[in-house]
Structures are given as C-alpha cells and as structure tokens.
C-alpha cells in the first residue's frame, strides 16, 4: 500500500496511462488543463506521446490518427473545446475509430453535450460518470475497453470538483502493458498486397471489389452496430436506501456526493429518503431509475444546471410518479460551476419540504 495525497486530475491521467493509453492530445482549458499537464509528464515515461495541440480541432484529429494506427488514445476538454470537437467525434463513430474523450465540465451544464453530443448524424457515445477520484481508475479502464469493443468514442465526464479535489489514494497498482494493435487498425503493411486496408467514415468498400463508397449501406451498417452497442452495454447505477423511500433523489457525479450526505443524515433521523446515482449516463439506467421510483411519492433530480438529466429521468419514470427538478443554481462568479447555493444545508431543506409534501 503506498497511499498518497493526489489531485483528481492526476488520478484521471494516471488511470489513462494504467489503462494502456499511449497517445494524448489536448488544448488547455480549466478544469481540463491539469489532466493535460499530468499526461505531458506521464506519457513519455512509458514511451507514449502527449501533444499540446494548437487547437481542439487538431487535438481530436491527432487522436483520430493515433487510434486508427492501433493505439489506445484519448483527448478531452471543457464545454467550448468539446463543442469544437463534435464533428470528429460524430464521424469517428462512422469510421469505427474508438478513443476516449474526457469531458471535464465545469458545473453540469454539459450533460446534454456529453449524452446527446453536438455532432451530426445518427451516432451515440457511451458516457461514464465517476463521482470522485476513487472511482476514476475503474471507469477510465472501462471506457477504453468500451472504445475498443465498439470502435466508438467513449466519454468520461468529470467536473471542476473531480479535477481539483485532493484525495488520499493508493496509487501503487501495476501499469498494464498496452494491448496489441487490433486487426482492423492500420500499420502500413498491407500496402502493395492487392488488399490494402482502408479506414474511413465513408465506409470500407473498395473500388476493386466492384463497388465504391456506398453511403446508404454504410450508414445502415453503422445503425445496426449502434443498436448492438446500445443493447450490449449494461446501464449502471448505484442505489442507496431506495427500497422504501418516499423521496427518491437522482444525482450523478459531484452532485451525488451532496445527495449522498443528505440521504445519510436524514436516514439517521428515520426519514425515508433514497438516492439513485447513474454511473452510465448513456445508456441511461432507465430500468434502475424506474424501479427505484416505483412506490415513492416523488422523484427529485438534483443537478447543477437548468435541468438536463431530468429529461432522461422523465423518459425512465414516465408519469407514474411526480418528478421535480432541484436545479437552476446560481452561476458562480468564476463560472467554473461552483454554485454557491449547492450546499448540503440547502439540499436538506429542499428534501425536508418534499418529505413534508409527501406526508401531507
């Protein structure tokens, strides 16, 4: 055991290197910046490459190339920077190029950006949401596995708190050897054989086979793969005291930590309040949320934005139980998402009101 005090950003970087990531490119933006800094020092030590790209467009382009060359690769940014990357994320899904995208958001205003994507076309990206540094290692490793399995970009969403919280953590686990390059990936060697490989968002049918790019057939194939991916990824959530809860809170990431503290405290007073914490934001754990809502009097979605995840909760629960949003917090002056009215006290008061309403 060699536990030490580490910052969340370093935990994220460390988790990527351990998961076999050997290429990283990014452009500084708070709170993504520190992850980039840590990658810049960690990757060369294991023979990897980290590029301080001149823009987010170039960062994701570089990752497109490194991943197509068979390397576990990742990029990331914050709101605006991720908006710039959306074209490539959407089309990487059509090209069958998998990599990890860190969405180091500020508050939780980028839930839609992460779960819907801002890109074009019929694509989806799996989204994993750790609620603290201790969970980062496993989820980052899962994200790379999913990117490999489905040959699709996978998002890991964090926030200012995750990036900047210092925790005492055991950082001694082994660094995995990078997995071998997958068979579909490019290494130049099939050139001149009459069967040179092609990786393209337009499809992989070659003219020598009597067909050119057939977009209709390619997009149909991508749609089928997307359906398989949707069905093939088990949605995950953590349930706390939801069995007999009158008030069921739904919260992810940092907000779930506040909710967890409130649920623990109110349970100690005998109040029937519970928490569902979605871990996969896509696929959204619809059945788990619906099951937890069943028998409750109200479902309250606690999120640090104007109400985004509440849409998914509505889709999950339907109209059987009333759903309220605990959202719309103040914007902090730094705009880093540290809303001053996100406090355990305020949430406790809100939940008490809901409990009173439930009993009335």
């Amino acid at each position, binding site marked *: 055991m060699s536990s030490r005090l580490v910052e969340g950003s370093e935990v994220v970087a460390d988790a990527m290197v351990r998961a076999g990531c050997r290429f990283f490119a990014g452009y500084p933006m708070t709170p993504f910046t520190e992850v980039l800094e840590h990658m810049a020092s960690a990757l060369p030590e294991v023979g990897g490459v980290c590029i301080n790209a001149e823009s987010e467009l170039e960062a994701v382009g570089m990752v497109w*190339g*490194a991943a*197509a060359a068979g390397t576990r690769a990742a990029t990331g940014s914050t709101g605006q920077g991720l908006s710039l990357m959306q074209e490539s994320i959407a089309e990487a899904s059509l*090209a069958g190029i998998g990599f990890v995208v860190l969405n180091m958001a500020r508050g939780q205003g980028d839930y839609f950006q992460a779960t819907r994507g801002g890109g074009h076309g019929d694509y989806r990206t799996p989204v994993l949401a750790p609620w603290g540094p201790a969970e980062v290692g496993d989820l980052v490793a899962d994200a790379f596995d999913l990117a490999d399995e489905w040959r699709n970009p996978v998002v890991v969403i964090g926030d200012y708190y995750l990036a900047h919280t210092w925790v005492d953590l055991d950082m001694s686990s082994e660094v995995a050897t990078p997995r071998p390059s997958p068979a579909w990936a490019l290494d130049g060697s*099939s050139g*001149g054989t009459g069967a*040179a490989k092609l990786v393209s968002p337009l499809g992989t049918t070659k003219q020598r086979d009597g067909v050119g*790019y057939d977009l209709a057939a390619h997009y149909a194939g991508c749609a089928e793969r997307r359906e398989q991916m949707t069905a093939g990824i088990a949605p995950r959530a953590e349930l706390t005291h939801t069995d007999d809860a009158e008030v069921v809170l739904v919260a992810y990431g940092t907000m779930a930590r506040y909710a967890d503290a409130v649920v623990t405290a109110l349970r100690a007073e005998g109040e029937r309040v519970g928490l569902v914490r979605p871990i996969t934001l896509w696929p959204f754990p619809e059945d788990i949320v619906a099951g937890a809502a069943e028998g409750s009097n109200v479902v309250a979605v606690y999120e640090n934005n104007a109400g985004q995840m509440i849409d998914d909760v509505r889709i999950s629960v339907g109209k059987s139980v009333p759903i309220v949003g605990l959202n719309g917090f103040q914007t902090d002056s730094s705009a880093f998402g540290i809303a001053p009215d996100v406090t355990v006290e305020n949430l406790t008061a809100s939940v008490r009101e809901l409990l009173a309403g439930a009993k009335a």
Partner: protein
Amino acid sequence: MTERRPVGLEVRSEVVLPTNVAPEDANLVADFTPNLIDVGEHHLCPGCGEPIAIRAVMDAIAVLGLADKSMAVFGIGCSTAFSNNLDVEVLQALHGRAPSVATGVIRMRPELAVFTIQGDGDMGNEGLQEVLHAAARGENIVCIMLNNGVFGETGGHLTVTTTIGQRTKNTIEGRDADKHGHPMRIAELIAQIDGVGYVARGAVNDAGNVARTKRMVVEAFASQQAGNGLSFVEILTMCPTGWFIPTEDAPDYLAETIAGTHAVGVLRQEQSEQ
C-alpha cells in the same frame, strides 16, 4: 465530384477516350497500368488533373519501394474518389483535418511514410492552420496539395488560391481583389517555416510538368525518409468543370492563368545531416 454543372458549354459529341486501357494506336513508352492504383477507370470529369497528380504520387511511392510502409491520409474533395482505390493503406480524414490526423499516425508509427492528399479548399480554406502547425512542429510527413483554385467538389467556388480574374461560382465576373481579396500562395507560406524539409510546386498540364512533378514527389518522400521534417508538394491541377471552360483548353488555362500566380518550382530543400 458530386456536382458537375458545366456553364456555357456547348455539348460535344466526340467520344471520350477511355482512361483505363491504352489506346490501340498508342506508342507505349511505359507500362500503362498505374502503380498502386486498384482500378484505372475513374469517375472524375474528363480532363481533370487530379487523377494525374495522384498517379504521380503513387508512382513515387512505387519507385521508392514504400508501398508496404506508407499510409495515405485523404481530405475531402474530388480526389476523395481515390481514397478507396489505392493499394496502400488509407485513412480518410474529415475536410481540413488531414495534417493533424497524419500527425497522430506518424507519432505512433514513425517508421512509416505518412502522406496527406488535400485540395486547395481542404488545406487552404478549411484547415490552413493544420498544415502550418504540422510544419512548425516538424512532423515528418509528406503533405500534397492539389491546387485547382476552386472547390471542384461543390461545383466551382472561390478558394484562398483562386487567382485574380478567375471566374468561380461566387466570383462570376472573375475574382476582383477589391471585392474578394487576394490569392494566397500556400507553398511560399510553408517554405518559410522552420522545421520544413522540402517544398515545391509542380503542375500536371503537360508531359514535362508531370515528369517534373513526379521527381518533386520522389524528392519529398526521400526527404521524409531521411527524417527532415515536413515535406510539401503543391500540384497545380486542371479543373475544366470548375473553371467553366472547354476541357481541352484547361492545360493552357493552367499555364497562363493559375501558374502566373502560383509559379512552378522548388522553393526549399534541406540537405539531410546523414
């Protein structure tokens, strides 16, 4: 080539020569089969310069014996028609993004001859910063720009290289510097960046220029193989469709109009240390 809308052309009835087989009466001085191109037949416009330029690039790779250690990264434009027609590995990039994609490849596979193929719209308009940054980072790749002074693919629109007086769909009376700004000389721009190994501009409007261009591409790959950093070859190509002129006039139009602004020649050549 998705949108071909010839403007002001009378329809001609002559039979167009097939390009995938040698004409019966041809006096062949070289093998007619293009190197490393799967299917010789193509669907670009008759008289298009891009297939000639791509053939020059593939010939250079064959000459240098790089077929099984090279990788093409294509942009989006008319030449994308060749991205699924080569016998070297191809990674298709998005419009404007080929140099960063090629960077990701070369950093992970430094032994490869990684090269990009982009149009002037793709490289100069959509993604100009990419090639400049890749050049300054000293990425050891070959970047090819097929310069026809238009977005051929969308139907003949103004690009950053369109010459003064050139008619395009959005400069229908000809490019006027006061109204539409000045053309940029991309090769000159790249030639002054530290970290660049080789820069040249060729053309495919006549046999002499094709042969010269092929030598430039060979030099570019040789420089890349010597590890001299980014090599850049701009190739002036005919686009009769996007220039709104008869097919057979296009080579002369290139020489008289396009090459007047974008002069053919070698602009930079670093000698390798070895």
